[in-house]
């Protein structure tokens, strides 16, 4: 696979491992947060974690939109299908996210909910056209990467005058989440758990560009390296972060220059701002309420907004008390620190957000790293 396989080359990897080892100062610790689930996945899936030298410690951030979707939002979707009889469609990743009363969309399906998996917003629109007599709701989730296709579908639906299509919008914003983590009392208080730098999002940055991260680098004096989701990309980014730290720099660097520009995709940005506007606040599973961290439909699209159309109200649901997701997402704890890990909480029965998608910190450790716990 051209432009994929080259970035997974074992030979180059061994070179980068040596470079990282050479760069890392054995006398200190480097704590880097990879924000994105995509990076978490690359680290786990290719066994990169296993190859990093002792001083380098990776913290899995909140960058999986499935994981951070709060219980109450899934509850809204389930109510739409079980009580209002809509056809609810969404990307496959959302189907197993746990909701209230032991449900999830998958379990709601088993209870008779008409829930369809789609691979693209194009399919969601097609469903609405196929079932003119039914309400079709697209449960939209995702970061900036996934928002433009939703915007496109809404423009299309409005142009066509589709009367039975609406969107339950859960699109969230990466920079707000990073700010929230940097400002969290724990992270600021615990001098003992500093974050020494960030690996910045790959595909989010395709859309928003690298510029939004410049603020962090300046404001919080943290180096940021935007990196692709292939394992060599991540390793290179680690190396670049190490160098910035060792050299006392705090800049935004772009390892993923083959796809990410400083300005991002203007066409996509314009489309998104035509259709969406900022929400005042949004509840992130594991992080809690984060101001201006999500999008909602603009008034011109009110007719396509499932929340307005079906008069839905969000009811927050507390996470499990013993779940340590919040601390894990902030880099303060690891999955092994959670009492529920691997017993009550498993990928089949996730309790907290980090166990929901395979890109979550707990799930990644469960599925890919657990064997190392006994070492």
């Amino acid at each position, binding site marked *: 696979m051209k*432009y994929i396989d080259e970035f997974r080359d074992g030979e180059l990897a061994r*070179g*980068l491992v040596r470079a990282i080892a050479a760069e890392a100062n054995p006398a200190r610790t480097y704590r880097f947060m990879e924000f994105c689930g*995509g990076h978490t996945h690359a680290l786990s899936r290719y066994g990169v974690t296993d190859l990093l030298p002792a001083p380098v410690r990776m913290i899995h951030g909140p960058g999986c939109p499935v994981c951070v979707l709060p219980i109450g939002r899934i509850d809204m979707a389930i109510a739409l299908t079980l009580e209002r009889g809509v056809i609810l469609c969404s990307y496959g990743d959302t189907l197993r996210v746990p909701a209230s009363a032991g449900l999830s969309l998958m379990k709601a399906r088993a209870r008779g909910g008409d829930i369809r998996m789609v691979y693209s917003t194009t399919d969601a629109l097609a469903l609405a056209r196929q079932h003119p007599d039914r309400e079709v709701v697209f449960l939209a989730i995702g970061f900036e990467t996934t928002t433009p*296709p939703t915007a496109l579908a809404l423009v299309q639906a409005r142009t066509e005058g589709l009367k039975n299509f609406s969107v339950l919008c859960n699109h969230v914003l990466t920079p707000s989440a990073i700010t929230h983590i940097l400002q969290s009392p724990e992270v600021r208080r615990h001098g003992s758990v500093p974050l020494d730098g960030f690996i910045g999002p790959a595909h989010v940055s*395709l859309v928003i560009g690298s510029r939004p991260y410049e603020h962090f680098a300046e404001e919080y004096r943290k180096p940021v390296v935007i990196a692709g989701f292939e394992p060599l990309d991540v390793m290179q980014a680690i190396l670049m972060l190490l160098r910035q730290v060792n050299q006392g720099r705090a800049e935004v660097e772009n390892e993923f220059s083959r796809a990410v520009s400083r300005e991002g995709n203007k066409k996509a940005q314009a489309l998104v701002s035509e259709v969406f506007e900022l929400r005042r606040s949004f509840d992130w599973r594991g992080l809690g309420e984060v101001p201006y961290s999500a999008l909602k439909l603009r008034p011109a699209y009110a007719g396509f907004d499932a929340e307005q159309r079906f008069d839905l109200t969000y009811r927050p649901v507390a996470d499990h008390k013993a779940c340590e997701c919040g601390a894990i997402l902030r880099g303060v704890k690891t999955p092994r620190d959670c009492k529920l890990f691997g017993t009550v909480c498993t990928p089949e029965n996730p309790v907290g957000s980090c166990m929901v998608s395979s890109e979550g910190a707990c799930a990644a450790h469960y599925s890919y790293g657990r064997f190392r716990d006994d070492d």
Partner: protein
Amino acid sequence: MCLAMPVRVVELLGDENAIVDLDGVRKEISLALVEGVAVGDYVILHVGHALEKLDTEEAQRTLDLFAEMASQADGAAP
């Protein structure tokens, strides 16, 4: 969730759609979010939509950088 991958455009269809190829696997996708895509270009595909063109020269530069880093490390090691 942000799963995306580079694919090669092999045919432009009407309606801002295209056929792309990844090692023999072909699929119809939308080009509505990108501009100026030609047959032969690589685009980054996400949930059925191309999000950006891939800059093949930058890709090569990055790969060269990997090799360079490795050789620097080897030079520095001893």
